């Protein structure tokens, strides 16, 4: 089951998800979804991974929810993808 961050009602239909199948060579991240648009936010660097779509379109309250739940999100990522953990594996460097 994907991990979906429980957002306050006022932020619906925004979604924040960790999928069960991801590109594992990229930084661990959550996917922020609003209707047909989506952004990727790194759980490692805590920045948006892509310049487009424009990150500033994401309400600061959504980003604040992610930052407030980082520990849980990191645990959920690590449980799903042990070969690409938040803490970079030494052998991968």
């Amino acid at each position, binding site marked *: 089951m994907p991990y979906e961050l429980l957002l306050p009602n006022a932020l619906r239909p925004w979604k924040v998800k960790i999928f*069960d199948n991801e*590109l594992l060579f990229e930084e661990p991240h959550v996917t922020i979804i609003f209707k047909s648009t989506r952004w990727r936010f790194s759980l490692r660097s805590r920045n948006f991974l892509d310049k487009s779509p424009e990150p500033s379109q994401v309400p600061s309250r959504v980003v604040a929810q992610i930052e407030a739940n980082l520990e849980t999100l990191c645990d959920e990522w690590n449980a799903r993808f042990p070969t690409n953990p938040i803490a970079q594996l030494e052998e991968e460097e």
Partner: protein
Amino acid sequence: MPTVIENPRSKQSGATGFLVPKWVDSASEARHAASSDEEGTVWIVRKSNLVDSVAHEVAVIKALKKSGYLVLLLDARSALLPPLEKRFRAVAFVPRALSKEEFDEVLTLPDREDRFIGGIVDEASKTLTLWRGNFKSITVPFSAFPATGNGIKPDFKKFSVIDYGHTLKFGNYESASEVVLFEYAPDFRRRLKQTRFAEEKTLGASIRRLRRQRRLTRSDFGNIDAKTIARIEHGKVKRPQASTLEGIANVLGVNRSQLSSY
């Protein structure tokens, strides 16, 4: 209230232009779909009897010119494919598709080719055929959706496409669509190389990406030393031996000539 976002890339006529969905809900609309020469129209049919009407009309009018696309939200009927494929640019049987609202929106997006509009599961061959928003199909084995580290597995009987084509859902398991595109769509990989991978275009970077996607370590390459893999990945070996590349490609499950495309 949530912020309303206008996708900066939406509603623009890109290189491929956007498509116009038309839902076929009556016999007269079915006749129109069969005879129309509207190039950018996507005819969407939900009812079996209306598909029969389209196919019958195509046979009656003997139309030779191809135009438009036909999406049938029904289980595949192979007998209908030859006549319909002579008439439409693409004919897609898509029993599991996006909702109507999402379907209509995706067809207007310039990046629709990077989204899936639906698909069809074949349990016998253990494959899933997915239709992209540009009406090209990709057939993938069930193994493209591995269990997670904590044991979450896909249920292919509960397949659907959600999030405007960005998500493939299999019961309680969800996959990002781009995982499938990276693996099975060379055009998608080429675009990633121009954007996300612009600073990592080397053969070594490609090998590293593919290895990590396969959840392998550098020690998983049999008689090829982990240090050799690391040196190749870091670009410290400019021209790896052909036999080494062959061995790497074999472990990664791709043709040697394709390695650099990942």
